[in-house]
């Protein structure tokens, strides 16, 4: 008889080994209790959900910043567009694709989400007030993409 907890942690570890940010992957997945009973598809869904949460937080922060930093209105409003695309297009696409069984579209969504975060960051020419947010969205999206890759 094998320890269920051990083999599930193993599954998370094996899955995360094939992603670019191992520690982030493990800590994100471990923070969600559903991950201990999930298959790879389940883990992908969990990660996509994390991207959604991070992106929501980022958009919230952007909207607040727009009020407080009128000088950065232009790049911030582009960023709002980027995050809007993530939340209204990429995430729903990824969730639906994973649930309905055509994972390549989930990868499209995850890849685009990472790109949108990069595009937002690029707007500030190195003086970004959003670096931490953009990095976490980029990295979790890249992680989600790499998990989906394992389903293809």
């Amino acid at each position, binding site marked *: 008889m094998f320890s269920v907890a051990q083999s599930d942690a193993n599954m998370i570890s094996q899955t995360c080994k094939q992603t670019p940010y191992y520690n982030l992957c493990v800590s994100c997945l471990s923070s969600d209790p559903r991950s201990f009973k999930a298959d790879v598809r389940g883990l992908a869904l969990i990660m996509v959900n994390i991207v959604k949460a991070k992106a929501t937080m980022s958009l919230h922060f952007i909207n607040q910043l727009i009020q407080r930093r009128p000088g950065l209105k232009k790049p911030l409003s582009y960023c709002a567009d980027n995050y809007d695309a993530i939340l209204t297009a990429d995430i729903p696409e990824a969730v639906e694709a994973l649930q*309905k069984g055509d994972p390549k579209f989930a990868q499209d969504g995850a*890849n685009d989400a990472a790109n949108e975060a990069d595009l937002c960051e690029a707007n500030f020419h190195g003086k970004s007030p959003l670096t931490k947010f953009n990095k976490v969205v980029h990295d979790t999206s890249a992680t989600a993409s790499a998990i989906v890759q394992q389903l293809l």
Partner: protein
Amino acid sequence: MADPNPFLPISQPLHPTYTSLPDGTHPSGSPATHSLPSKKLLLGIFFGFLLVFLFVALIGDHNGSQQNILSQEDENVASLASPKETAKPETLRPISRGVSAGVSEKASLISSGSESSTDQYPWNNSMLSWQRTAFHFQPEKNWMNDPNGPLYYKGWYHFFYQYNPHAAVWGDIVWGHAVSRDLIRWLHLPLAMVADQWYDQNGVWTGSATILPDGKIVMLYTGSTNESVQVQNLAYPADPSDPLLLDWIKYSGNPVLVPPHGIDTKDFRDPTTAWYTSEGKWRISIGSKVGKTGIALIYDTEDFINYKLQPQALHGVPGTGMWECVDFYPVSRNGEHGLDTSANGPEVKHVVKASLDDDRHDYYALGTYSELNSTWTPDNPDIDVGIGLRYDYGIFYASKTFYDQNKGRRVLWGWIGESDSEVADVKKGWASLQGIPRTVSLDTKTGSNLLQWPVEEVESLRLRSNEFDKVEVKPGSVVPLNLDAATQLDIIAEFELDKKVLENAAESNEEFNCKTSKGAAHRNALGPFGLLVLADDSLAEQTPVYFYVTKGRNGTLKTFFCTDQSRSSAANDVNKQTYGNFVPVLEGENFTLRILVDHSIIESFAQGGRTTITSRVYPTRAIYGRAKLFLFNNAIKANVTASLKIWQMNSAFIRPYPNTR
């Protein structure tokens, strides 16, 4: 011998069991006219379990003992396999992974070639609305992907497609529908099928049409059930006397096929058009995978309702992953004319094609079909399905052919996705195109590849033309071509390289690859040379479409055909890769190309369609009246002489069919 016109329920009254049941149970009642295959289904699953393992073993043996059969190859004909593609079937292809290398075109836009980190491109309505095409099929708005069930019936070409009625991104997929007299001027019709049954509740996915000898149409398509299981369903026109085929009926006993044992419930989709065997059965193929081996399953049927899984897959190739949108069809060895899907005989070769989920490209291979055990053997296993030739070296996926009995040709449709960012797609409210339909035939000169060429009807869009005869383009120079406009063009061009320079050019062991090269800036004594499409006056934006010639050992010339997107746009959120591949240029041939330019799509054909590249570009300056066309020659030594004929192209006025509900 089975009746080639199997009994099919024609029109049935709509019936309460058509609504999906909330608890997902299957409607058990069905009209008395056809039997429920439940017992057969169980037996079938049991035997299927055994047979799946049997044919996987057989595939293994098959590959192991495979002879390297080369079809008629002329000494003068250079091998089609570029260095990258001679990998053995057993080794895993070097498939790019994740965001950094990018499987989908949307991956890693920032790091793929744009050097300066500029402001996010402020896409405005003028730039975005320019991107819509004038003569390529696209719905009025929202998202489209795979072509479905193309067919010709009662004077109309029909086109169905995967469509999202709600957003400019994949999701909520249903079947769109359009008709045309000529494959070019399309009229939109109401949706053909929506997700209204438990067995397609999570997606009315890709399928194909079979036209029976008596004219009846059978449509087989994949449904994603309410539990996300992939199943195959049967549908047919509600009213065969309606040439517009507006309404479709889903067979009350659906699904007709469920994943066999040993096949994952999410690896079973995209049924092909059926072909008729000499034993009087209809045969279809459905793509799948076992482990990392992509395969094409075979089913036999007499009535399109009951199916028997064949013990051997049509074919499989290790390491290629899931085979989507499998296509299987005959081509004539002798000529350009197309063949009905059921054609067979010594004059015929068969093509197996698969869309690889892993890398989003469409691959095909030529080979020989053995009807007896329903298997297919590639002519050249080194360039087997998934590891050899592609239909197109740019964006071109989920493609599907059909036999056009109206004009006796085989026609290829391909889905052309976007390569910009989602934020732009959301702004413009649409995403994706279909390529211009192409005829497909065997290249009788090389014998080892297909030729693709835009259907002749596209020429009916040609308006006024400009001719340029023997224009000399010196090394390192650019020649503007004086045209009224340059966003809707049909270009035919022929290039001749300076013979002396060609003869005296030094041999090099350069291993060239369009994708890893420096694009049009990558020069040698002989090239690159070609056209700068959608370029602005200052050449800040340009999309070179060109030939690059290398001279290898023994003086053998090798020609590549590429499209360089690195400077296609000032925007930083679009794909900037260089696409392309080797193209055979035979003794005595000049370098010839054809390019269709239609706003944000450029389709290029080299050497009569031996190698093709479809590209999506999103210029910000080289749009409307500011878009120009140039000849260029970036060779270090050789002069190039170019002759061209360029037509302005009319719009196809694709719009809704008048007065349909």
